[in-house]
């Protein structure tokens, strides 16, 4: 395969997609790709929100590895770097303020668009998917539109599902025309319910979820548009596309909203699809994998030697993936500017068992995800496997303190 694309969709829950069981048809285009996809059923994000998850996704390393997080730690290797060194053209198009050039994420990219130079709306401060697509299309046309071109790695990221949940009418009408809420009312719901994490009114939570679902449908149209561009430029046949998220979103499954420092499935379960145009039959893998595995996979796909700084393992070939567990970690972002290192939380998943540890209150939770997929029944004190799992997780707790 000549080119690799990493297409990430912010805040996309794994169970929003039809190919993961959702019956509402919110992502018909992504669902339609399954015949050419390897789909991972047990992918786990290494963190429940952007800052905690992106180090795994783009540097194959853990969020708290170097203590209090600031910009991109110089010790981390960003996926662009080894690829650029190997002569692969690297390009990034996104609008997430946490992954901006100012914070150091522009290392190793031949082209890096982080939207910080462009105007955004005051209420929805990111660039929409179709504008990202236009910029990507312009670049692809100039890079690969005329005959011979150098292989490329392209990362594009859509922010559209991320709150404040204010979908435009045309997308509302695609999903649920009964939603007649105005943009101002949507914004008010965001300010007064979501920002305040107020879960007292079930009707408001239902409405938030409806608006969220509409955005999922919107994002699917952008994915379709992007694939259309690859096809039009006759690049699709030579390009592998990895589709995933950074984290999910909560709608009161565990008493909260949005995406805070919790390690439950609604935030951690990752949709992960590897689209390969040369496949004629879809494959499904139940390997428990981490988003840390994505950079090593990309390196493997380009036929390069494994990168030393990457802590994950290539997802492919499937049979060679080591059957170990996966980890994640985060800190409380809301109680203190810059995040609170004293309110740290960790998880470890092995098979269908997940153990979670909140260090500041020394609290353990453990769930059997097969029997109890909603994670309501804490078996940390009763499970015979609890001790073993605790011992695997403990060495990671506050490991940066010497």
């Amino acid at each position, binding site marked *: 395969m000549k080119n690799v694309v990493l297409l990430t969709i912010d805040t996309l829950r794994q169970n929003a997609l039809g190919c993961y069981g959702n019956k509402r048809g919110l992502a018909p285009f992504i669902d339609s790709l399954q015949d050419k996809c390897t789909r991972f059923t047990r992918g786990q994000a290494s963190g429940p929100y952007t800052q905690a998850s992106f180090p795994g996704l783009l540097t194959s390393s853990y969020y708290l590895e170097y203590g209090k997080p600031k910009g991109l730690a110089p010790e981390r290797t960003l996926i662009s770097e080894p690829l650029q060194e190997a002569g692969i053209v690297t390009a990034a198009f996104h609008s997430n*303020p*946490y992954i*901006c*050039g*100012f*914070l150091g994420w*522009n290392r190793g*990219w*031949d*082209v*890096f*668009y*982080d939207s*910080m*130079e462009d*105007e*955004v709306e*005051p*209420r929805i*401060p*990111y660039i929409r998917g179709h504008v990202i697509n236009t*910029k990507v299309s*312009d*670049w692809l046309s*100039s890079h690969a539109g005329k005959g011979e071109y150098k292989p490329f790695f392209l990362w594009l990221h859509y922010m559209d599902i*991320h*709150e*404040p949940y204010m979908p435009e009418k045309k997308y509302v009408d695609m999903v649920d025309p009964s939603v007649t809420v105005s943009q101002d009312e949507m914004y008010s719901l*965001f300010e007064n319910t*979501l*920002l305040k994490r107020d879960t007292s009114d079930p009707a408001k939570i239902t409405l938030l979820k409806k608006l969220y679902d509409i955005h999922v449908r919107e994002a699917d149209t952008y994915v379709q548009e992007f694939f259309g561009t690859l096809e039009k430029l006759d690049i699709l046949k030579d390009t592998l596309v990895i589709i995933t998220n950074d984290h999910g979103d909560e709608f009161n499954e565990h008493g909260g909203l*949005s995406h805070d420092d919790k390690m439950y499935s609604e935030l951690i379960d990752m949709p992960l699809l590897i689209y390969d145009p040369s496949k004629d039959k879809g494959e499904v893998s139940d390997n428990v994998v981490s988003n840390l595995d994505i950079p090593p996979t990309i390196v493997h796909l380009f036929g390069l030697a494994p990168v030393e700084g990457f802590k994950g393992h290539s997802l492919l070939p499937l049979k060679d993936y080591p059957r170990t567990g996966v980890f994640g970690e985060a800190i409380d*972002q809301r109680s203190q*500017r810059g995040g609170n290192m004293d309110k740290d939380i960790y998880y470890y998943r092995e098979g269908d068992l997940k153990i979670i540890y909140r260090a500041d209150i020394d609290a353990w939770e453990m769930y059997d995800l097969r029997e109890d997929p909603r994670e309501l029944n804490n078996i940390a004190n009763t499970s015979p496997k609890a001790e073993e799992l605790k011992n695997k997780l403990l060495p990671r707790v506050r490991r940066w303190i010497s």
Partner: protein
Amino acid sequence: MTDKEKECAELIEKSKEVVRETFKKFKVEDLAITWTGGKDSGLGLWIIRQVCQEDGIKIPKVMTIDEFDVFQEVHDFMEKYAKEWNLDLEWCRNDDLIKAAGGKLNATVKVKDLNERNQSELKRIGFEEETFPFEAESYTGNHLMKTVMFNMYIERHNVKGIFQGLRRDEQAARVQDEYFEEKEAAHLIPGHLRIKPILHFTERLLWNTYQVYKIPYCILYEQGYRSLGAKTTSAIAEAGVPAWEQDLEHTTERAGRRQDKEQMMGRLRKLGYM
């Protein structure tokens, strides 16, 4: 001609093509040139003058933004050449903001003391606090002193095309920039075309061109400044070493500006992260 001279001549020719194409598209009255007194807009202005002299066209009007915190040397340089080159130069200044700050840098400005236009502009960038310090290079200050004055100038003169002295190599994000960029009309921003004739010049080649063609530049560059912005936030890169003798290839032209951090923080706040 030496190789160096040939290289500069080719780059200038390319810029002149862009300028000539612009004059084909628009009447002189509908055009304007931005000039900061710095090396980039200075080169753009010089090239446009060359074309106007060669083709017998009147040079379009020139605008500059007085961001209040200016170097006297830059001001004097611009006054001198505006006169010598007979330029129709307009100095744009957000006097309402300066008044609200009592004419003092770093003074606290109360939003309610500003006029309606300034208040709307603050709303437009999502600024909701009641006060802010008067600093040109802060995100808020930059918006009111520069962006707003720019937009108002375009509105006032019904400018259809405006020349800017931007180079691709200044920032990674500019790599895909084109010579002609259409800016769609939006709230408080009139639609217009931006023309960037010197995009293809690098910092090094720019200085080579200044030397080959003996183009005038502000004396501050000789003293070691590489980049000239607001006085308090522009620093000498290497004292006593003229800009063109510094290691342009391996050091950054503009140090990480505080404005970038504020932009980022503003967006994160709006997304509910703080």
